[in-house]
């Protein structure tokens, strides 16, 4: 007999179709290809419509700040003529404290328009606060499923703070122990309540981030006279990279390079009860960043709107200790006390700025709120309690889950390039595996895979030939 988990997962398609109010089948073209742009446009909202929805919800129009002190710090140890100007989009200024408000606002608007009584999301991140806050404003009921504790009922202060803020906004929070069955329980709750699925990965959510990309281009043209040379995005499930890049392009900035950045958590298992509390970042890390980039359709929707390989020019990784260092530096040098996860891209930006000429510009496209629990001090104190050694030294020597090495000098902050060719190969392999054994890709499939990996047909054919 099928287990309870298998039984509900078998009904995923039917439950999500009702809970999203859209049928993904109409976009399917083959076992590999689907009409991505058709799916993204199906909700019918223009960028202007979304801006209007977000303004009504207290979302968007966040300040773009030039970080002159941080830039001069980088210039103090760069080669002569180097040290790009660093800017940040202060997304912590949104209603519930992060860019996730943009993502939630469109989903909540759609849920309200379509007459759903409530919304449900499975998230241990800032998205829970965003959904809870927007749902409160829309008078919708809200359930947030969170992976919060290990089997001893010990929770990371960062996640516990996120439980608190969801409850502060009146949401019902189901706190759970470690495991991917979080998603099967979310399906059970969607089935039982008839609520809307405020998925992170629907076209509603990802479209909501496009305003961020468009705004930062507009803001940079206003402040510097041109679009930024680089935009750096903290990368986890891929929505932030995808939505921001789409917005940057829609604002006409064709030459702006998109760089994704994650905290390196290699070696830690995301479904492990014992590794769970030995990592100090619950999002923006490689444990989500790599699997979601190389197989986006692992998400809770039939086709993921977040397809980061389409847009990513480079993928940089940084260590936990480097991000904590930069979080403290931002606070002391720029008067910006913000949460560590959102500073992942800032850390990569400091490394990248050093290698670029002084007249180049970099926009770090988010910050997140901070506070008790969700703070770099709290995270480091908790790591130490969990047996992780916190040291000063060369961050390149850190081992995720065992040591966190705080740099002694800013020169030690060096992001590493993740191998993009390897990610593209991995994506194509996954797409073929999911198409079924013996399926032969058509010319249209090759075109789709080329678009989905930001490469060309010849490159995809070579990957397939080499598999």
């Amino acid at each position, binding site marked *: 007999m099928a*287990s*309870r*988990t298998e039984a509900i997962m078998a009904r995923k398609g039917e439950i999500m179709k009702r809970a999203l109010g859209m049928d993904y089948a109409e976009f399917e073209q083959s076992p590999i290809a689907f009409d991505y742009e058709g799916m993204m446009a199906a909700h019918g909202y223009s960028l202007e419509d979304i801006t209007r929805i977000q303004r009504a919800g207290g979302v968007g129009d966040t300040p773009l700040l030039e970080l002159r002190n941080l830039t*001069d*710090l980088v*210039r*103090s140890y760069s080669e002569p003529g180097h040290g790009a100007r660093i800017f940040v989009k202060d997304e912590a200024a949104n209603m519930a404290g992060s860019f996730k408000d943009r993502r939630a606002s469109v989903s909540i608007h759609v849920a309200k328009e379509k007459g759903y009584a*409530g919304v449900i999301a499975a998230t241990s991140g800032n998205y829970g606060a965003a959904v809870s806050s927007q749902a409160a404003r829309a008078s919708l*009921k809200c*359930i947030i499923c969170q992976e*919060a*504790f290990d*089997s001893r*009922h010990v929770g990371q*202060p960062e996640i*516990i*703070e996120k*439980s*608190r803020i969801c*409850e502060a906004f*009146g*949401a*019902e*929070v*189901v*706190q*759970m*122990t*470690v*495991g*991917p*069955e979080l998603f*099967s*329980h979310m399906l059970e709750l969607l089935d*039982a*309540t008839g609520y809307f699925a405020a998925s992170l990965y629907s076209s509603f959510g990802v479209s909501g981030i496009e305003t961020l990309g468009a705004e930062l281009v507009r803001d940079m043209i206003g402040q510097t006279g041109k679009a930024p040379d680089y935009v750096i995005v903290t990368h986890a499930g891929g929505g932030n990279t995808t939505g921001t890049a789409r917005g940057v392009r829609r604002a006409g900035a064709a030459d702006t390079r998109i760089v994704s950045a994650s905290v390196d958590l290699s070696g830690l*298992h995301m*479904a*492990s*009860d*014992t590794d769970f509390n030995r990592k100090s970042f619950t999002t923006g890390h490689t444990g989500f960043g790599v699997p979601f980039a190389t197989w986006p359709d692992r998400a809770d929707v039939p086709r993921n709107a977040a397809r980061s390989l389409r847009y990513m020019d480079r993928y940089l990784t940084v260590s936990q200790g480097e991000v*904590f*260092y930069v979080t*403290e*530096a931002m*606070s*002391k*040098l720029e008067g910006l006390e913000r949460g560590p996860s959102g500073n992942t891209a800032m850390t990569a930006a400091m490394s990248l700025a050093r290698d670029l000429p002084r007249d180049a510009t970099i926009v770090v496209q988010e910050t997140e709120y901070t506070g*008790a*629990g969700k*703070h*770099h*001090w*709290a995270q*480091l*104190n908790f790591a130490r309690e969990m047996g992780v050694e*916190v040291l*000063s030294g060369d961050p390149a020597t850190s081992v995720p889950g065992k040591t966190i090495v*705080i740099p002694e000098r*800013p020169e030690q902050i060096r992001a590493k390039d993740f191998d993009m060719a390897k990610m593209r190969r991995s994506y194509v392999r996954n797409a073929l595996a999911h198409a079924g054994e013996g399926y032969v890709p058509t010319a249209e499939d090759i075109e789709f895979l080329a678009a989905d990996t930001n490469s060309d047909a010849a490159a995809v054919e070579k990957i397939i030939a080499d598999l």
Partner: protein
Amino acid sequence: MASADRCGADDWVEVSYTLLEPADRATNLPEETASKPLIAWVKGFALSGAAMGDDLTVRTPTGREVTGVLTDILPGYTHTFGQPPAQLVHIGRDLRERVDAYRKGGE
């Protein structure tokens, strides 16, 4: 009325319940996860009085009735900032000095 170990009807409480026993959990989990039950905690208003550890049904903020074991009465939060980590305390001083020195250096 609530006391340290007993809640009354309509008190704000937390209950805990088992969602999945180890045998019913997803496949491909690491052993340390697969061997544990999947547990959930939810808060709501008690539908009756109960002692800590008793079975109790609550009405959650969305109006669902959920039954579990009473684990907390007026559940709160105690997460904080804690002491400044020794590895971070010099960063502000050192970096401000470096920026000042760089600017005085004629840039």
